[in-house]
């Protein structure tokens, strides 16, 4: 069986929905026997969920306005070239 360290090296693959079945079984053999790694998998998944669940910060209107102004200036320069 994999050691915890070996398992954690493969954690990204384990969390990847496209992992192939053989690899998944191989990693499952460890995680179903090891409470520590089970908790690490669970809390890593929750970590990613928390980040993904946060609504994207909106861009302040004044920031947007300044972006469009800067682009306008740039495009006007280019037209004159």
């Amino acid at each position, binding site marked *: 069986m994999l050691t915890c*360290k070996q398992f*954690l*090296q493969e*954690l*990204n693959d384990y969390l990847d929905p496209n992992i192939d079945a053989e690899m998944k079984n191989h990693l499952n053999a460890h995680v179903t026997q090891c*409470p*520590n790694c*089970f*908790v*690490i998998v*669970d*809390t*890593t998944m*929750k*970590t*990613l969920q*928390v*980040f*993904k*669940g*946060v*609504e*994207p*910060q*909106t*861009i302040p209107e004044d*920031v*947007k306005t*300044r*972006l*469009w*102004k*800067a*682009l*306008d200036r*740039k*495009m*006007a320069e*280019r*037209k004159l070239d």
Partner: protein
Amino acid sequence: MTPTTHPAPSTGAFDEAALVARAQAGDQAAFTTLVDHYHRKIYRIGKNITQNNEDAEDVLQETFLKAYEHLAGFQGNSKFYTWIVRIAVNEALMKLRKRKGDRFVSLDEPIETGEEEVKREVAVWEDNPEQRYSREEIQHILNEAVDDLKPDFRTVFALRDIEELSTEETAEALGISVPAVKSRLLRARLALREKLTRQFKRKGEDVFANL
């Protein structure tokens, strides 16, 4: 003086390649549509890497000004989005270098992977932390956690897990290898898990009471 180039509401599907071709042929409205489509993501990347509002705004402007300037040189070997992400990451890292002074930040810097034991906090979380804290509190907790990451890790995490670029796209945008993306992502995820666990762990209970 040109009229303000606020984009017209988009009609039909967003076709990146066609818009880039039109923009390269001098169609400014096509470029404006590209900016409108991607500016939120670019701002967020700037914010996540620099962790600073002013820097994020500079990254946003510089990215699209440079993209416009160098549009003719864009070859179309990669996606336009990956190309502007690369510009944005470079701008953001430059900001960090300036701000951190002598703490030089480089994505090419070798980092030790794998051998170093990650100190682990193994504890189950309280239920639904998202509901126990206000949106602002959660945002603050996440920002602090990301801010503590080394820039190399923070950048990979921002592109892979926030912007949801693939491993290959992230490698291309950062100019680093696929294995480097993978190992940095692993380290970033484990470090964030660690920090959030300290925040969200179930208090006053034996860690494995429920197992």
